[in-house]
């Protein structure tokens, strides 16, 4: 079964455990500035929103790469940057409509979420289940369950 990251911003507290876990998994350093998942803060409304690559099927980054350095991991569905061949041209960063692939000055390559090979560190670190790793065909299951429970509530 293929899985997807599923994000529920309502549950995010802004603790950045995901950014710490991601950066440590990817670079061996606790360093939010190297995290591939970012938590955004909307102060006026008091909202925190985690955001990362959704692994599009027809991935713009993959299509745009002139040296074929972004490959599909068939098991996880992740689009994975091949560091050995990436030339740091940044065309992928321009083509991605969501901004979730970024150039890294320190390495001269681009970096994006690769689902940690199928066991994403961000989801494991999230203390509130704002980030979960669930059946890719059923990312809406929890939401459906919530509404189903309401429909079945005789008191409403």
């Amino acid at each position, binding site marked *: 079964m293929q899985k997807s990251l599923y994000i529920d911003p309502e549950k995010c507290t802004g603790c950045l*455990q995901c950014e710490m876990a991601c950066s440590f998994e990817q670079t061996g350093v*606790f360093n*939010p500035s190297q995290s591939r998942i970012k938590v955004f803060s909307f102060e006026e*409304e008091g909202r925190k929103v985690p955001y990362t690559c959704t692994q599009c099927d027809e991935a713009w980054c993959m299509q745009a790469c002139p040296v074929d350095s972004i490959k599909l991991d068939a098991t996880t569905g992740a689009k994975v940057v091949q560091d050995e061949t990436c030339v740091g041209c940044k065309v992928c960063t321009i083509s991605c409509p969501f901004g979730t692939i970024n150039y890294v000055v320190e390495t001269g390559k681009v970096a994006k979420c690769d689902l940690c090979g199928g066991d994403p560190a961000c989801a494991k670190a999230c203390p509130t289940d704002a980030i979960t790793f669930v059946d890719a065909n059923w990312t809406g299951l929890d939401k459906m369950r919530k509404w189903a429970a309401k429909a079945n509530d005789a008191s409403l």
Partner: protein
Amino acid sequence: MAWTRQILRVNLTKGTCTSEPLNMEWAMDYLGSRGLASKYLVEEIDPKVDPLSADNKLIMATGPMTGTIASTGGRYTVVTKGPLTGAIACSNSGGYFGAEMKFAGWGMIIFEGQSPKPVYLMVENDKAELRDASHLWGTSTWHTEEQIKKENHDPQIRISSIGKAGENQVLFSCVVNDLHRAAGRSGVGAVMGSKNLKAVAIRGTKGVGNVENPAEFQKVTAEKKQILAENAVTGEGLPTYGTQVLMNVINEMGALPTRNHKDVAFESANDISAEAMAKPRDSDGKAHLVTNQACFGCTIACGRISKIDKDHFSVVQKPQYHGASGGLEYEAAWALGAANGVKDLEALQYANLICNEQGMDPISFGATIGAVMEMYENGTLDEKKIGVKAPFGSAEALCELVDMTANGEGFGVEIGLGSKRLCAKYGQPELSMSVKGQEFPAYDSRGIQGMGLTYATSNRGACHLRSYTVASEVLGIPVKTDPLTTEGKPGLVMAFQDATAAFDASGLCIFTSFAWGLGDIQPQIDAACEGDWSEAKLQEVGERIWNMEKLFNLKAGFTKEDDQLPKRLTTEPAKEGPAKGLVAGVPEMLPEYYEIRGWDKEGVPTAEKLKSLGL
């Protein structure tokens, strides 16, 4: 090893920023943050220095756990000689700023001297420089954060700054970071103001990559997070209700100081409680509370984010305050509310947000208003003098006076002196509910006896965060003790004081101690840091920090006479509730406390005690 081993020294007189290696011998004895910064302070300044002079220094320090994945590992401490108290000041804050300092590669920043003009420090990894802040002077902490991000074209900068209160050297002004978090007490903001230092802005992209044993650290921090998640207080009470969960609990115990400590219970406590914050308002059908939020790395997330009622008199003409902002937390809700007899939740939120925006400690501000209201009611002060009618319970007066104090207008200038100086000025020193000049927080020491001793002996003046015996006396953590008795409390207070100092020195949040003991932070510190960090060693580090702070205060001129509560608490019994008829038993607890501390009858550490701690 988790320390960055690098200190940034900023000389504001000369305008220089220099790097120096961290004294690792001291790190081994004092761990970090509160402990290590205090060690640097006591070594570098004369304890008799005027806190607001160029000769005082101000240190911002992280601990070894700051900026790691350990839960709550985002704290930093501001250490200086406090202008409110004249004692060593050490104010701890969360948010994201502390971790950013670490990510930039600095364990500590020492500010010395006095800048001839307003400046802010800009740090980008190794690069640090002082920049002109004349365009920021006279503006709020919120504006300062926004403006610095804007002018540097970098929304990811983290900022710690003072507002107008710090600039005006309000003696209980604080240092605010990340909009709603503050190094709150003892007037550390005024020290920044006296140095013409408006803000510290940091962008760090280096991260923390040097923990001693990464695999073990990942494993043990994950296990300890699980303990926090499963604990009733840290896993449920605090995230759901925040610290405000205490309002009704403490009130029912008859330990909620009300109307400047004249009463021990507030008839309207429920109106300003966590429950009230979560309930839809009659006016607009919306709840005051929007959500809970976490500081950096924190898996508890006790922080409150609220929205004020747009039609409330305090903000109806001020749309800039209609958005979400931090609070109310328990201590602030008490100080702005019960301490003044004010039951208008929206008014409390307004006063709280002005405290955040302009950088004031809401505890000391609120408690000082309590004293003002009592002097208004007894005829010492009148409407002409204050500029507003100020009886107990007046939400209008609270909102008016918070503006005046933050802006340094009219009678607000006198409020900015704090209750001790204000009450003395009007011939009623006994009405200041403070120890060493710092106002009490939200627990009455007649109904929770351990807190009386906590306040009396706290090295930074009255404070709940030096030894939170409420945990034991109210919540039964780690063991239940009777709040109404003095028996065993000296030992309890000492144990809490030393353990708290160790928690503070690590860079972790003291709120974890509802679920964690020293035995839980020990393996996390040990996996992160070089050297052998046993529980016994952490205990000793805590005791060493406590004695070091005490020695500083003694040299600054404090004596046994300063380890006392105001007469009201030791002579006027509680009027109602479980503690009815009781006064605070500090006089009977103090000799025993000195003795078990290894101090003489005057409260001076003995040579033997100092030697055993290597002091």
